[in-house]
């Protein structure tokens, strides 16, 4: 089973896939998706690693009290959850508006949808 069985409605050959891959619309989707996905992934990863690095390198800063006994360290760790959720929600709305729409336009154009 080197390839998935071609039981789909498309039934395309290798040349056809290559042609889609060269389609300007596909290239645009691919570019915008890569930029969005890898960009936000890198942001999230950097933001996450700031937590252990910050705790190790600047414990004094983490200990600054903000609200009563609640300190910056606690709020920063808590913010990780909200940042991850925000990225997830933003991605969902972006995908609905941009990549899913462009993809269905492309499929319609190719009569594959």
């Amino acid at each position: 089973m080197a390839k998935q069985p071609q039981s789909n409605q498309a039934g395309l050959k290798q040349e056809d896939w290559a042609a889609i891959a060269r389609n300007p619309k596909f290239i645009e989707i691919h570019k915008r998706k890569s930029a969005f996905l890898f960009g936000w992934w890198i942001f999230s990863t950097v933001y996450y690693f700031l937590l252990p690095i910050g705790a190790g390198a600047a414990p004094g800063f983490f200990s600054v009290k903000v609200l009563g006994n609640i300190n910056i360290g606690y709020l920063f760790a808590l913010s990780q959850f909200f940042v991850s959720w925000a990225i997830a929600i933003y991605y969902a709305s972006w995908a609905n508006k941009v990549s899913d729409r462009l993809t269905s336009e492309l499929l319609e154009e190719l009569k594959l949808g």
Partner: protein
Amino acid sequence: MKKIYALAVLALSLGLMVNFSAPAYATAGPETALANAVVAQAPQPPQPAAKKAAPTKVEAHRGITITMFIIIVLITMYIVFWAAKRTKTTADFYAARGAITGAQNGWAIAGDYMSAASFLGIAGLICLYGYDGFMYSVGWLVAYVTVLLIVAEPCRNAGKYTMGDVLAFRSSPKPVRAAAAFSTVLVSIFYLTAQMVGAGKLMELLIGIPFKYALTGVGCLMIVYVALGGMIATTWVQIIKAGLLMTGACILCLLVLAKAGFNPIQFFHDVATNAQIQEWTRVQLLKDAVAKPGFDYGQRFLEPGLLLKDVWDQISLGMALVLGTAGMPHILMRFFTVPTAQAARKSVIIAMFIIGAFYILTTLLGFGSAIHVSPQISFAVDKGGNMSNMLLAQMLGNEIYPLMGDILLAFLCAVAFATILAVVSGLVLASAAAISHDIYVSVIKGGKADQREQVMAARIASICVGICAIVIAILAEGQNVAHLVALAFAVASAGNLPTVVLSLFWRKMSTAGIVAGLVIGVVLSIVLVMVSPNMQYPKVIAAGEKKIVDTLEQKQAGGAVLSDKEKADLVKAKASYETNKNGTSYIFGLDKPLYPLKNPGIVCIPAGFLAAIIFSLLFPSKREEEAFDELYVRQNTGVGIAQAIGH
């Protein structure tokens, strides 16, 4: 036939639990002795006169707990029968026919992922070490950003039942599937062993069922769920478990917050001003025999650096979590149960909200048990603090009404039980799928096997994996298995993730690269853990014992009279020194760790990527490069998505 088989196993596992629980209870069991020994070593908790004493051990009410267990088993068994009738094809068995909705799958992912270690362990770490325990929990959620953005949708679009499907899309299927199955089975076995040993200990500690019988009971149930009900039953067990877990965490959290008048500022004020937490931080964590004047030990509990002291180790662990979760075969497999990439996306987002909310609740529970139970008592009951949630439930429940404590505790025991079942079932299913779908059907039979034979192979593989897991876990009793979780994530992040990501996104990835990436990533992670500080090094232990002997002997030489306890310590330390001084580590015969970190991620993840890239460049394949267009268009658009509609 199936029914009779399942009923027999059901009766057997329940029988084991009920029968063997009674005598163990009567004779108090070895665990109580252990707990007493721990209490003896632990610092004696101060006894504030006015404070209502927290329970000093966990004693679940047998009748209520067993009843709840039976209810859970009966409900899940009903689902298994219902699912078994619907499990006829491979699509049913491996992917629940692709008919799970995004929302259902979200709950199932959460149920698959949140283990008893998360529920009990992280709360325990927070109870004992404060802020660092919370910081530790963050990575487990952030990992899902990688799952969401990088792997979920492409895998749904390019795969069918297993990770091997994604990797073998354009490569030579036999070597790639064999390597993928090898790493899937290893990851699952490591993770499974850690879970099963934890489960056995937990059951022993909570309701006094001896380790072996508890394990066998859990193992038999898990085999029935997976072998009969396949993915449909596993999914529903996971959904139910996630619901129970969230319910339990929410109830307990409400009780904790009510104590602080639902005011978070008051809550943290209570932590910082709690006398027992202050003493715990001063004596046990910072080892200050005399309080430094003006130092706020309570506030220190809310600051970093009490548990996680090595930044490199944390970065290494963080890398393994962030990249390893996305390479976990049982998580990847969940994406094949939904019909579209959109549903896969939705399911990850729902899972992220459930998992994130759960970890935030866990913080409150951890700090809550530090306030109300105290770290001293939690440590005395279990050195890892694993019982702190249970102690908290028992205590807060008892304050409402005596029976409430029992009911709440029994409910949490049942939650822990369901949690264990759901996680181990997901793991068994993932490795059974790798063995039957990748190895048996594709490698051995060359893809020529009819549906009946394939489903039979999958069922037999599930039973075999389940039995192996039970045997390994029984053999591993008493071993330190905590590092196996780290090892599972390291293997997934160094072997699986690089090859999956590169296959999906890099044109030049070839069969040689996939096989080399998997094998080198997996083997290197295992070797690094074997030579890391996770293992026991007798000479290091001997050095520690030598110190104790020297200190005590000096004291004796100085004319001081040793107390009975000190005398006993001296004898013990001397004996331990003698047995350990010439020993070497179990596997490689080392005197001390060769690799300084507990987590191998920082070395083995780049190595996995490099191996995959170098071998792809050394052994390129023109055919595979040409097939990239198809994979790339498919993974981006979902054209020709391999619907899990077998036949």
